[in-house]
């Protein structure tokens, strides 16, 4: 668990299971959010779950621009290091 990217992927998997019982075993940094067949509301709930766990707030405009998991990881890392 030393790779921070891996941690966020694991957290996303955990959140997806918690929010909507979505099992995302094959989730990678290149996974496109559109391919996950999760509704926009659920994606925002998953993000809210992650925000709460990491004690951060992500910008709505930035969230609307992310297309894949790598974008989310970058967003989170930017907020955590700023």
């Amino acid at each position: 668990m030393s790779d921070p990217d891996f941690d966020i992927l694991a957290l996303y998997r955990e959140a997806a299971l918690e929010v909507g019982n979505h099992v995302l075993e094959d989730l990678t940094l290149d996974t496109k959010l559109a391919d996950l067949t999760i509704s926009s509301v659920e994606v925002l709930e998953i993000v809210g779950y992650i925000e709460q766990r990491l004690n951060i707030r992500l910008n709505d405009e930035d969230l609307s621009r992310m297309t894949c998991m790598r974008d989310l990881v970058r967003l989170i890392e930017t907020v955590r290091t700023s």
Partner: protein
Amino acid sequence: MSFAEAVYREYMTFFEHAERKRRWSVFDDVPWDLIDRCPRDPELALIAETFCGVELYLPDYVSEGIQLVRANFGQAWFMANWGYEESKHGLALREYLLRTGQRTLPQLLEYERQLYEHRWTLPFATPQQITIYGAIQELTTFHIYKKHEALATQRGDALLAAIYALIARDEMAHSRFYEKVTTLLLDENPDSVKADLVYVSHHFRMPASDLVPGYAQRSEAVRQADGDRGTYLREVWFPFLKRLGLTRHDLPRLPRPARPAETPDGAR
């Protein structure tokens, strides 16, 4: 002031603005004199025909919607006015296809026959949910028409672009009315409205997309200028929440679906 009176006042404001500033005529305000300069682009015609198809479910939209809100004067009269304005949308697109010679009357009649083999039914059960759905759907439709207005302009079809611009302006006005009513509902019962905001957005689908004949084949052409999830969030969902004075953090969570092992009999 009661909710009914507040909605009535909102409707009168909406209607006065519509009567004084926004009315347009299919005969006088559409620049039909541009017909000769239309490029007759088959893809633009297919898109216009698809939108025309969605608009042609008007009898179902009006009859289902008005029955749901008939006990509230402002909402019921809005539905009647909404029906009049929406009727011009289908009519203008139908006339565009006919007058430019991109469809014949028998072709359109056959298309309509296929359309009316199906019925549109209400996607949500309560007036409150339908009000929220209306705000989201009309705002989404506004953005779709604005993007197709830009596409038509880019491809040199100023006539179709002008029709889309007229329709888009109506859709925005409709969205704003539904939004005002949602605000009134929010004042009355915030927890219930917040729960319905989440519920409606989660189950939201554009109307009639599963009813228009051959929609799957049409959808690629329609989607070219439409948005994805990010566009929906950026152009519709977040602005809608902001105008209601809410953020995503104010909303409750969706009811969590039961996991297979949590079902009453434990069956998977």
